[in-house]
């Protein structure tokens, strides 16, 4: 029973989520292959070939795969699927986009956002914004899984394994790529950062995110995050959203500023190792999950915290 893992990458670099998906795949079987699909992504394939536990890398390159569009990527995975009993991807925006298409083409019910694999047949996954965890057994002959990256420890580096070039699937040009607008940030990636500083509606404006919260994040070398309320209010872009329908993070330290703590937000950060909440409302639900709560006006406390940390280093 071999497992195929879809590599997460932007053609230049292999994303850490792949090492975590491989870790999940190894819970299913020892024979794990990684599919690198893209264009000009040979370096990505090399990096994948060095992931510990991977036995082979499949490299598919072509113009139609350059931007990870769902239709050609799903067709490619389905064309390779005959050799595998399970297909795994991380719950990234690419994984969430393409894997259900693969599952439906194979007439398989996908198991989304798996947080634990109890046996090759039993999977745990959160429902209702993580308020309930269900354990499911699949009746399908094949498994199609997306895994929550933060729930699996990434595999390390190992000896280089072979890279096999595979053909792309012709046809399927139902959608065309127009443009990417990549948020340029010097800060670490939200989903893999060791420290995350997040702001909520209490930040009051987009300006305050930049002038009050960002300096604290930069002092700590932290990623910047936000609650849905802050995204709704237009303070920050959606790619910073932490929560049930945004990104799921589990950093060593999560600092929530002006975030009330709606269940949808808690769903995205409650597995953080240490949670700090700064909020002037002592009754805010965020304090029920915070290891350290500071009831204070964030516009005083956050600059003070930044100052204290900056002077200490």
């Amino acid at each position: 029973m071999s497992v195929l893992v879809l590599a997460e990458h932007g053609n230049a670099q292999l994303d850490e989520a792949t090492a975590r998906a491989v870790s999940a795949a190894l819970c299913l079987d020892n024979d794990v292959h990684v599919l690198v699909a893209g264009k000009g992504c040979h370096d990505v394939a090399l990096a994948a070939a060095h992931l510990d536990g991977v036995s082979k890398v499949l490299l598919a390159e072509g113009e139609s795969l350059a931007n990870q569009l769902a239709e050609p990527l799903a067709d490619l995975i389905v064309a390779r699927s005959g050799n595998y009993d399970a297909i795994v991807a991380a719950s990234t925006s690419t994984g969430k986009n393409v894997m259900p298409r693969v599952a439906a083409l194979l007439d398989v019910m996908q198991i989304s956002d798996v947080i634990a694999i109890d046996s090759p047949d039993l999977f745990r996954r959160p429902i209702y914004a993580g308020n309930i965890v269900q354990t499911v057994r699949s009746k399908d002959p094949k498994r199609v899984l997306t895994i929550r990256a933060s729930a699996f420890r990434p595999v390390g580096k190992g000896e280089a394994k072979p890279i096999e070039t595979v053909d792309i699937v012709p046809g399927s040009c139902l959608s065309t790529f127009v443009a990417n607008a990549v948020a340029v940030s010097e800060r670490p990636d939200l989903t893999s950062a060791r420290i995350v500083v997040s702001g909520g509606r209490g930040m009051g404006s987009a300006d305050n995110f930049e002038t009050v919260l960002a300096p604290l994040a930069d002092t700590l070398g932290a990623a910047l995050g936000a609650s849905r309320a802050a995204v709704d209010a237009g303070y920050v872009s959606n790619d910073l959203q932490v929560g049930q329908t945004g990104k799921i993070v589990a950093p060593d330290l999560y600092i929530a500023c002006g975030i009330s703590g709606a269940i949808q937000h808690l769903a995205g950060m409650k597995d953080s190792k240490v949670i700090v909440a700064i909020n002037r409302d002592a009754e805010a639900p965020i304090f029920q999950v915070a290891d350290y709560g500071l009831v204070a006006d964030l516009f005083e406390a956050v600059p003070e915290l930044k100052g204290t940390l900056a002077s200490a280093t």
Partner: protein
Amino acid sequence: MKILVAVKRVADPNVKVRLRADGSGLDLAAVKMTMNPFDEIAVEEAVRLKEAGIASEVVVVSVGPDKATETLRTALAMGADRGLLVRTEATTEPLAVAKVLSAVAGEEQPALILLGKQAIDDDCNQTGQMLAAKLGWPQATFASQLAVDGDRVTVIREVDGGSQTIALTLPAIVTADLRLNEPRYASLPNIMKAKKKPLEERQASDYGLVIEERLEVVRLEEPPTRAAGIKVKSVAELVERLKTEAGVLA
């Protein structure tokens, strides 16, 4: 151009769903139900396309229990023209729903199908993508902006690093993300009007389909709750504790 919008009846997102005391299942008996918030955004977008003269008809469809007629009425009150309930009391997994919706699309022949990106009960995030696969149509998930021009729809998608713009040839599937629009509240007169709008009920068997479950739920549990920690009195105390007690700051 006809638009089909799929909607799901779910527990109110503001309610913290729990297990029954005997652990035999979810305690939803007293929970307020509502339209899945992302589906509301999808309905709103369809209604706006109609108001802009781009869509000629908006049909809303739900696969679910009797009570899902309430959800469909809400969509009709928002401005959809016609409703269709494919009635089932079974658990509706995305794959089964996608098959029913695919059959409905075969009859209705819409140029565009809109869905919410994810239902906030099972948190699957699958139905739109699966429907696209079943129909062999292109898909644009997690849409934050949508523009129809002739036989093409251009969609800006929310992706991990920022956004991606893609163009699809119609017919196509688009799933709605948070920033696509802000759904309207239905006015009282529109709620009254919605009661007179056509709402048809069908069974999956009318389409030659059986709603089957592929996943067996063997256990439901509430995750360990995180204990509240302590309140610190000052920033200085916070920094001190983070360094010494928590060990997360150098």
